[in-house]
Each structure stands twice: as structure tokens, then as C-alpha cells.
């Protein structure tokens, strides 16, 4: 019912979509790793990395602004890095006396702050592109090929499968709570804070029990249908020549970005 609110996959038949999920995962992680390795203030390398991202987004036929639009999710966290501006090393650029404390932004600090922001922004966009062009079950399958323990990948697969079911359950519970604690708009309604907490806690407990009992039913149903402890996929995953070519090309590109950052 709410599946579309969660699933980030954008169906297309582009070159990027057709790549092997393992290749996409490796390239995405390599790209993020490369961003983390670039020194502060290597703007040319950051620009090159952004260009590479834009090319990949273009190839995926999702529209150039696609990842850009969704990249705001990580923005609130930027607040954390603001204090890096007032780094103790470097030349002070100004001095602001706030009464109780004097703040002095430094050149090193400002460069550091913007570098952190750019790194994070590029990395988030790459992750968005990865999940937008790869179906989640394929992604899990890629994890399995990359030696993530099978029990863990199976748990993640179950989480993904039942997330929508349980979220619907939550929506039903929230609707029931709202229906039972109706009130006139603008007027105080519902009990005291402690009562609200108790209601919410009982809902969490109720949800837990329903999930627990559901998992027992699921397991029994699966065993009776021949579940042997792991999932199978209908999508064959074989690395063909094109996958290797793209992987090598991407690695060369990442190496070039690194070299640019250190010139």
C-alpha cells in the first residue's frame, strides 16, 4: 500500500540499470572512498568527481537533476561541521565578539568546512544513484556475492519484505489512536504527557507482539512451501565483458580524480 513511499528504485532500461549490481556497488563504494581520501580544498578533484557523477546520472536516464533533488536529506547534519570553521590552526579571517565567547573563523577552518560539505554531498548523491538504478533484492544479492554472511543478508531481505506490511500496521494503529482521542481543533485534548507515553509504549509493545506472532506464521508458511534457509533469485548474475570494462574504466577514473587532488 505504501510501498512506493519507500522504494527508491526507478524503473528504466539504461546502461547503468543493466550493469551487474556487484559492479555498481563496488564503484559506488570506491567513489565514496575516493571522496574521503581527497585532501581538503582540492576543488579541481571535487569538480571532476562531480562531473563523473553527472555523466553516470545522465547515462542512467533519470534526468540530471534527479540525484540533486534528493540530496537534501544529509543537509541537516551539516550543522555539526559548522564548528570546524573556527579551527584553532590557520590565519583568522575575522573576529566576532559574542559577549560570552569570541569566534574567529580561520582560512583553514572555512576550507575544511566546505570540503566536508562537498564530500558528503557527492557521496550522498552516489548512494542515491545506486539505489535508484538497482532493485533492492539485487543489491542484497550483490552483498551475498561479496561475502556478507548469508544469515545477515536474509535478515535484510526479510526486513525489506515486511517493512511495508508493518508500516501499514503502524498507520492503522495511529489512525485508531487518533480516532479514539478526537478533540476540537485548537483545544487541548488527550491526556497528560505520561499518559501519552504509556499509550505510545503500549502501541510499541502491541506492534512487537503482532510482528512476533506474524514471524512465526511466516516461518511455518515458508517451511511448508519448501524453505531451506536461503532465498533464490531469478535474475542471473554473471559478470560479462561489459561489466568488467565499466569497472576498470571507473577505477581508472577514480585514480585520475585522486591524482588531480594531489597535484
Amino acid at each position, binding site marked *: 500500500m505504501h510501498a512506493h513511499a519507500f522504494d527508491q528504485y526507478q524503473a528504466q532500461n539504461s546502461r547503468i540499470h543493466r550493469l551487474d549490481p556487484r559492479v555498481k556497488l563496488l564503484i559506488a563504494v570506491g567513489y565514496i572512498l575516493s571522496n574521503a581520501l581527497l585532501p581538503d580544498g582540492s576543488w579541481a578533484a571535487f569538480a571532476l568527481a562531480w562531473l563523473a557523477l553527472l555523466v553516470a546520472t545522465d547515462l542512467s536516464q533519470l534526468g540530471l537533476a534527479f540525484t540533486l533533488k534528493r540530496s537534501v536529506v544529509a543537509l541537516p*547534519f551539516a550543522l555539526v561541521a*559548522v564548528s570546524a570553521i573556527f579551527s584553532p590552526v590557520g590565519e583568522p579571517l575575522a573576529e566576532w565578539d559574542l559577549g560570552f565567547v569570541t569566534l574567529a573563523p580561520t582560512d583553514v577552518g572555512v576550507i575544511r568546512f566546505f570540503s566536508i560539505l562537498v564530500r558528503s554531498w557527492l557521496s550522498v548523491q552516489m548512494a542515491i544513484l545506486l539505489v535508484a538504478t538497482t532493485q533492492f533484492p539485487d543489491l542484497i544479492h550483490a552483498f551475498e556475492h561479496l561475502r556478507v554472511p548469508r544469515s545477515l543478508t536474509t535478515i535484510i531481505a*526479510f526486513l525489506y519484505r*515486511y517493512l511495508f506490511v508493518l508500516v501499514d500496521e503502524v498507520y492503522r494503529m495511529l489512525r485508531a489512536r487518533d480516532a479514539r482521542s478526537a478533540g476540537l481543533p485548537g483545544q487541548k485534548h488527550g491526556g497528560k504527557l505520561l499518559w501519552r507515553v504509556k499509550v505510545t509504549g503500549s502501541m510499541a*509493545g502491541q506492534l512487537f507482539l503482532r*510482528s*512476533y506472532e506474524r514471524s512465526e506464521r511466516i516461518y511455518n508458511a515458508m517451511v511448508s512451501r519448501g524453505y531451506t534457509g536461503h532465498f533464490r533469485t531469478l535474475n542471473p548474475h554473471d559478470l560479462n565483458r561489459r561489466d568488467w570494462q565499466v569497472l576498470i574504466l571507473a577505477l581508472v577514473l577514480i585514480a585520475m580524480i585522486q591524482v588531480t587532488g594531489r597535484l
Partner: protein
Amino acid sequence: MNFSPAPLHIPDGFLNLVISLVFWAATIIMVGLAVSKTNKTLGDKQIPLMGVMAAFIFAAQMLNFPVAGGTSGHFLGGALAAIVLGPWAGILVMTAVVTVQALLFQDGGLLVMGANIFNMGILTAVIGFGLYRMVAGQKRGLRLAVAGIAAWLATMAAALLTALQLWLSGTTRLEIVVPAMLGVHALIGIGEALITVAAIAFIEQTRPDLLTEEKSTSGGGRGWVVAGLVVTILAVLISPLASANPDGLERVAEDIGFLDTGQDAPFQILPDYTIPVLGETGLSTIVAGVVGALVVFGLLILVGRNLRRKSPTD
């Protein structure tokens, strides 16, 4: 639906490579232990249970209650998962939750996922289960109170560790990030504690068979109590030091050689680890990271062995 990123999910770019790799190593060890532990004791049947429980934690994070002035209390769930399912299963469940949050919602990064899993899944399980295990079989009131305190402390410890990771990465100033993170999470933690207590009380009333003494004690041995207490005491000791006297902690870090305040952030926690042949290149950073990771690997294997020996279930 609106899904707001919680301040504990660190995005990529905010931690440096060494810190990211060190916490990846720690997380891989703990999750690997958890996988082998749960495989041994729980078997096939437990996989669907843990998967659905992970979906439960995810969905339960959407439950909120209005507090005041437009803000609302939220639920993180790490301590509850560890208390109800046992620590190893709790770690696996939270690992799955954090992974899917990062992959589906970009709530938390990929390279820093190790740190995020460690903060929100492993640390909360150690504190949540360790403290609750201490009072397993005691009176109901005492158990619920301890569960609440454990949930609050787990939230605070996760916030503290996140703050320290950000500081060690050179992303932020210690004297700003620690009080800010602890201040915000002191409130979030109260909501967490109250919901955890209410949820456990409800489960005990409805399905008392799920929370018996044998169930809680068979989930993990006495080693968890020790680990939980040690981590809690560490967190309690570091927080006031870090928030009231940040210069003190920075001084300590500098004296030990932890902190090389300045631009070459990747070398901060291993400043003496310079490889003359490699110089200050990316390769040298990776090697430094791998060395740091190996050290943590070794330590954790020792701890893990110890835990296993002490646990009476083996």
C-alpha cells in the same frame, strides 16, 4: 511520509577514513560473532523472526508522541531489541535496520556505516542488555526501572561516541559537539526510556513467556553484565570531562599522541604511524587505517574469546 534523519546517523564525508575503517573493523568482528552465535543457538527458524523484528524496529521508529511546542518524542529501539531478543540477535536486527536506512533513505552513509552500526546497534545492545541482565529475575518494578535507565544511557552513550568520532575526524570542535549532542539526546533518551519501559511492561502482561528469566539469561552470559557496566562507567566518566572540561580531554588526547590538531586529519589517531617510503599519501592513510583496524580486530577477538569462556551456555 515524512522521514526525518535522526542526528545519530552520520552521513558520508563527516568521518575521516581511519575512524571509518577502525569502526568498520569493530563492527565486522561483532556482527561476525553475532552471526556465528545466533546460527549456533537459534537456527533456521530465527532468521525470519529477526528479519520481521528488524522491520518492527523500523516501523516502531515511526511511532511518536507529541511532547510540547511541535516537537515529538521518537524511538530508536536498540536497547529494546537487545533486551527482548537477546544481545546477539539484537545486534543483527539493528545492523539490518541501519543498513537499510542507509541504503534506502541515505539516512547515514556507506563508508561510515560501520561507525553507525557500532553506535546505534552494538553499543546500545551492550549497555541495554548488560544492565538488564544484571537484574534478570528480580522484582518487576526494579527490572522495568533498570530497563528504562539502560535505554536512556544507551542513547546517551551512542550520542557521546558519535560526538567523539566526529571530533577525532577533525569535523567539529569538541567543546561544541559534546554538549550539543548530549543535550539533545538527554531529552530524546527520556522518550526512548519511557517507551521502552511501557513496551516491556505491555509485553510482560500479554506474553509473559517471552520475557522469562531463563530467556534473558540464556541470551548472553555474565560477561555481558561486566561489559555493560564497564562501557556505562566509561561513558559516565567521559561525558562530564568532555562537556565541562573539553580542554582536559583534548590535553589527554594530545599527551597520548591521539590528536595532531590540524590539517592532516586522516592521521590524527595514528600520528606516529608515518611510513617513510609512502609519505603522506592516500596509500599511507589506508595503511594507517588497516593497522588501526587490525589493532581493534585483535582487541575484540580477545574480548570475544573472554565473553565466550565466561558464558555458561557454551
